[in-house]
């Protein structure tokens, strides 16, 4: 398939999660929603269901207001809104981790706001690298497994999990590869780049891997377009079409990202271990460089600088989801670390209800002129 044809496909999937879900349900599949940030999707996959990312949507908030005060981030608000509205109807369950305070509240509210879709909590440890942390992660996974076993009337099979882990590791690898390759292809728009990442949330990973592999092949055959201004973006989500259009209008290319809904998902693979579940535990204990994971050395800021330097990004744009306190705290450190390294950095605040992107455009335009 030609590049454009593939990009159209990614776009179609990214823009129509409802259609995807309907198709899976029609095919007799079960769907389990996965809230941000690190749900053990492999477990859901191994138990025969489709894990679907639930990161909210750019939609007006009405019903969620009954539960959340206005100062909770729009990702949590809109997930709840969609849940109450019935957009997720048909899903068997939702796994909600509690890595930030707002996520904890989403889970608690969910039980009453959307009682028909089972809430499965996933409690991760923050001190995750040591033995005690690993044991606790395992207990958390076992709890998810137990709930799914009951819900689906099936039994968990470690061999099946190995199969899923392989699929996920391969998907991680192709996502890293495509991200690196996209850096060499400025002609691929920021909007298209976003679609490639976003579509992964609404597909079985083996299907997404196949599509991404096709894209990689097609890209390798196609000549690189004209150079644009290279930047690295960082934040929780960056899937807004209006926002990405600004980059495209201004001739800015995203050469790398530190976005929770994008590359942060694909940095860590599940390694070899005695059992598949242990392998998954090791995957989580090896994760880092994220505002939601305890990181006293703020290695995340170093990684941002290093990645920017390696990819030739001339500046860092932090896309801050309004009311996201983990990111708000990290921003101060990222800013000073970038400045230390002589790397220009700017902040654009966004939320999922934003209609007017004029201010964002001005900030990005000024930033482009500066770098």
């Amino acid at each position, binding site marked *: 398939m030609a590049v454009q044809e593939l990009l159209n496909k990614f776009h179609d999937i990214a823009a129509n999660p409802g259609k995807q879900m309907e198709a899976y349900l029609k095919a007799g599949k079960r769907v389990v929603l996965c809230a941000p940030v690190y749900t053990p999707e492999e477990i859901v996959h191994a138990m025969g269901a489709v894990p679907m990312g639930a990161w909210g949507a750019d939609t007006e908030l009405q019903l969620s207001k*009954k*539960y*959340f*005060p206005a*100062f*909770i981030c729009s990702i949590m608000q809109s997930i709840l809104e969609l849940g109450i509205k019935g957009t997720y109807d048909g899903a068997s369950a939702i796994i909600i981790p*509690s*890595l*930030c*305070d*707002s996520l*904890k*509240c*989403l*889970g*608690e*509210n969910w*039980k*009453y*706001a959307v009682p028909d879709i089972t809430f499965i*909590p996933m*409690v*991760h*440890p*923050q*001190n995750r690298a*040591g*033995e*005690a*942390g690993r*044991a*606790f992660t395992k*207990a*958390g996974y076992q709890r998810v497994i137990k709930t799914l076993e009951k819900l689906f009337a099936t039994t968990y099979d470690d061999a099946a999990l190995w199969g899923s882990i392989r699929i996920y590791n391969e998907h991680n690898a192709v996502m890293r590869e495509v991200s690196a390759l996209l850096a060499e292809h400025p002609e691929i728009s920021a909007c298209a780049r976003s679609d490639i990442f976003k579509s992964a949330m609404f597909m079985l990973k083996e299907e997404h891997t196949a599509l991404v592999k096709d894209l990689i092949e097609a890209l390798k055959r196609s000549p690189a377009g004209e150079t644009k201004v290279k930047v690295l973006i960082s934040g929780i989500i960056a899937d807004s079409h209006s926002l990405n259009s600004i980059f495209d209008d201004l001739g800015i290319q995203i050469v790398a990202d530190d976005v929770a809904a994008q590359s942060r998902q694909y940095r860590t693979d599940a390694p070899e271990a005695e059992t598949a579940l242990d392998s998954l535990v090791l995957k989580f204990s090896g994760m880092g460089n994220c*505002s939601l994971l*305890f*990181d*006293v*050395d*703020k290695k995340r800021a170093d990684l941002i600088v290093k990645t920017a330097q390696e990819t030739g990004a001339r500046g860092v744009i932090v896309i*801050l989801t*309004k*009311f996201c*306190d*983990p990111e*708000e*705290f*990290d*921003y*101060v*450190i990222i*800013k000073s670390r970038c400045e230390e390294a002589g790397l220009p950095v700017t902040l654009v605040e966004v939320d999922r209800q934003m209609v007017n992107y004029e201010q964002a455009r001005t900030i990005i335009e000024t930033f482009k002129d500066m770098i």
Partner: protein
Amino acid sequence: MAEEVKPARPPADPNSAKYKLEQIVRKHYREVQEAKERGEKIGWCASNFPQEIFQTLGIKVCYPENQAAAIAARGGGQRLCEIAESEGYSNDICAYARISLAYSKVKEAPEQDMPLPDFVLCCNNICNCMIKWYENLAKTLNIPMIFIDIPFNPDYTVSDAQVEYVKAQFLDAIRQLEEITGKKWSEERFREVMAISNRTSRAWLEATSYCRYKPSPLNGFDLLNHMAVAVCARGTVEAAEAFETLVEEYKKAVAEGSSTFRGEQKHRIMFEGIACWPHLRTTFTALKNRGINMVATIYADAFGFIYDDFDGLIRAYCNVPNAINLELARDRRIKIAKDTGAEGILVHVNRSCKLWSGFMNEMSRQIGETCEIPVTSFDGDQADPRNFSAAQYETRVQALAEIMEANKGGI
């Protein structure tokens, strides 16, 4: 979560609980300062970090949350918040964190000074915001951070897996602190500290339970002041004795029918959330003028750590108010509301505290329904004076008073 406000008036009778409690807070700050001056390593500590650890080791710490509350109550909240904002911190971040991070930069505040730390002790059983706040302190001050992760528990009871996880970190924290300070752990001293902490907690819980009397012998806002001691000195004999004195005073007041609440106590309410420290007088006066006394708060429970052994201690720290699920949080409040005969609930929707406010709507709805009492909320902030409207507060309190009045067959 924890806070303290010291009245500017000179202390009264040295035998009174009030005097003793004030002295404990003063002594607490003085001792940390002196330890620092002696060259000892001192820490900053999260309000619900297991104090048994450093009490046993004989390490002095102070509490940024108490300091932030004191600064806010004495009018410095906005100034410090703005300093943090000029550093790049969003004004949506918890105001305690903003005040503390600003203080760590400017290193002085006439409202409440505190020596700078050589390490920080973090525990996120009250919120995950704490992790980020302490990470940034540790990073910018270039000091170690000891972190006991006590995750929010979505279940009604604490699992064995959680106990094991927390226990291992507890032991690890001891090891790290021994290394940093050179002090040595003593099992015998640990047992002593546990016994004293239990004694203090029991006395604190008993004192707060006097709210159940009609009329209540205490003005509920008193508790907000005394709580600082429950936070910073729980493991000391002086604190145990001061709370025991408080119990005696309340006992006597009940017998005499007197109260520290001045005026008639027409209505009894549960106050939900942290106080609005910058507007304490406004918030209190609006209640007092209508004869409304606060007789119930989950805060009273928050620092009553009762346990029998090490496992029990760990479970107690896993069970603090902000670490528990909606159902357990709800049931505890229902019990308090019923025990104290609360006739209404006034909810502080605290702009600073996402966790406390994030499922409060649903929870207070359920409490109101179960107890058949009205629930009213107002918007505020525990330390940033800009996020509060006196007019809105007045209107809401008035509305609550009217419903409570009507429920009594009045008006």
